[in-house]
């Protein structure tokens, strides 16, 4: 009977799983990543496969990384890691298929061939992950909290938060800011030139802490004036700026600027001192590493 491999959804976990598959000669039909934000029924389960859990081992992950670098190159390892961030349902099997061919050793040049039938789909997946990462550099929207902290919520399709941190560290080196991946329930919190990963199971108190302010509304009305009405093109807009991002973009999600003008002050604002202590305390408590 073939096995459905359960692992802890990290790349190291996946590499350890592959390591064990080779070591124990397992017959694999699929992978199940145990993600905190997915419930049991959401994760695709195969009725005819026997679940088999593999613990993450840093040692075996490290050995497999070295093996991939030796057989192919550092770039290929980076590409596989980028692909893995797509969290695609089939991505583990695709990578495994590539690794099997790579380690079979039938073609000594296989690791350098970018147009093999296993590699091309991985290249296209990595491309779309990088595209979302590049888009997200522009689509993170910070709101200013009364205490001077900037808070942004994002909801990317792929797990790209770690890839964009470096950019924002370089951009706001002196600030205090947090970017929270609402979908995956974790975020990064930057203060005093250091960033920390934090778990944020529920970010609603943070967004209430930093509501849209006057500059947000000015941005929205500026955005509305920039469109030339003779050229309006909703299809092009949706192609460039997919609807799934609109929720966290004030220029698309706030009500029309003419309406916003009337109700200038938002009502559900927490008293700033209380909110500040809640927000900071909870962020600090959740620091992981």
């Amino acid at each position, binding site marked *: 009977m073939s096995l459905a491999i359960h692992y802890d959804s990290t790349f190291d976990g996946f590499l350890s799983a592959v390591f064990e598959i080779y070591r124990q000669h397992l017959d694999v039909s699929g992978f199940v990543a145990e993600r905190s934000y997915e419930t049991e029924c959401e994760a695709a389960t195969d009725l005819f496969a026997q679940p088999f859990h593999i613990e993450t081992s840093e040692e075996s992950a490290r050995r497999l990384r070295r093996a991939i670098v030796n057989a192919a190159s550092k770039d290929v390892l980076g590409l596989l890691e980028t692909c893995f961030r797509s969290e695609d349902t089939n991505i583990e099997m695709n990578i495994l298929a590539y690794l099997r061919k790579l380690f079979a050793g039938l*073609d000594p*040049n*296989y690791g*350098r*061939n*970018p*147009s*093999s*039938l296993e590699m*091309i*789909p991985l*290249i*296209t997946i990595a491309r779309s992950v990088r595209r979302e990462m*590049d*888009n997200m*550099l*522009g*689509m*993170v*929207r*910070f*709101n*200013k909290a009364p205490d001077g902290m*900037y808070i*942004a919520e994002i909801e990317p399709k792929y797990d790209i938060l770690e890839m964009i941190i470096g*950019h924002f560290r*370089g*951009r*706001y*080196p*002196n*600030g205090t800011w947090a970017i929270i991946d609402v979908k995956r329930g974790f975020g990064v919190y930057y203060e005093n030139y250091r960033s920390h990963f934090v778990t944020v199971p529920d970010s609603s108190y943070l967004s209430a802490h930093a509501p849209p302010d006057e*500059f*947000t*509304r*000015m*941005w929205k*009305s*500026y*955005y*509305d*004036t*920039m*469109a*030339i*009405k*003779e*050229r*309006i*093109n*909703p*299809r*092009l*807009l949706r*192609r*460039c*700026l997919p609807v799934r991002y609109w929720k966290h*973009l004030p*220029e*698309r999600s706030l009500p029309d600027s003419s309406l916003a003008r009337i109700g200038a002050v938002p009502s559900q604002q927490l008293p700033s001192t209380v909110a500040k202590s809640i927000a900071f305390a909870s962020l600090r408590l959740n620091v992981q590493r």
Partner: protein
Amino acid sequence: MDIRDKLNILGDAAKYDVSCSSSGSKRNSPKGGMGCGHSSGICHTWSADGRCISLLKVLFSNACKYDCAYCVNRRSNDIPRATFTPKELINLTLEFYRRNYIEGLFLSSAVIGTPDYTMELLIKVAKELRLIHHFGGYIHLKAIPGASSKLLFEAGLYADRSSVNIEIPSDRQLQYLAPEKNFASIYRPMNFLAERKLEYKADKSKYSPKFLPAGQSTQMIVGASGETDFQILTLSAGFYKQQQMKRVYFSGYVPINADKRLPVITTKPPLLREHRLYQADWLMRFYKFEYNEILDEKNPFLDPELDPKVMWALRHPECFPVDLQTADYEMILRVPGIGVRSAQLIVSGRRFSKIRLQHLKKMGVVLKRAKYFIYDCEVPRELHKLYPEMLRPLLIAGKSMNDQLDLFDTMPTALPAPAPQPKVAPLSVNS
């Protein structure tokens, strides 16, 4: 007038400027400040007309002393006028930047007083942003035609990119539509900045300050005066070569002013023509085409039905079919349906294995177009025996078949429908 009204008026006045790119400049965040330049540029959002917004694009003032026929801010128009103070504008830029709404500032202005006075105001904003607020983001400054060289040079020290818009692609038409301007007054600042940049490049060291790291750009209006596409492409090829422009933008003419010298105010903006011109521009910049290969004196207009790359392929049947295993990279780039990335993948992959149709499909090559132009054992031989005249309707039909078919529309067929039995023609449900 509060700052919000000013922003709306001056943003509205600047929106007809096409350029909004933030690419070409790599800066690290200055010590004690914030902001960096990202060399490939970052789009922050797209407006409802599908144009990217990456910079805070505003005019410093829209109280212009000139009276150019095509411009929304001309002296004789009755519109609300506003002028920022430098402090307001700087504060707005920094606040927007902190919230990651924008990549930087695009600052232009109507001419108030003299060109020199206007230019000084623009420089003051850029200088304060860079020196007092240690701002490392992107700054695009317009060079005001007629400003002195000393000021232009100073602008280049603080800005990442500078631009002078030529607007109308021929000198005579320009002088007719904009009596205060001529080609010489527009070329002078362009050439000056291009020469200074070359000098800077020549003796560049690690410590020398940056001078216009992202170069220059310009823009011309399409469809306001009677130029041909060939004239437009010739002019832009000249800009790329002589003035070392990074980009030449095209802006389909949107009728704003009723003026007897311009097309009537009800004309629709020529969006398709603009799109084709951009495609031709892409061919020059990324596909190694020369401007006179895309168009010539005999065919001065781009084809609205087919893109310029396909048109070139149809005019040169002697170059096809291309064998992907052996052809040069430049030749593979010229195959319709193959883009830069696929071409690179083909060239690096063919050293290890033959490139077959299944590879091409996975790479994202548009086989619908490419199949007529490549040699492959799986492509039927008959496809290569087609004459350009026979190929053309096939390529056009292949394009429109993608759309949802209309129930009451007649089917677009490549061949003429059989005449004697009109009643059994497909989709004639209503008859």
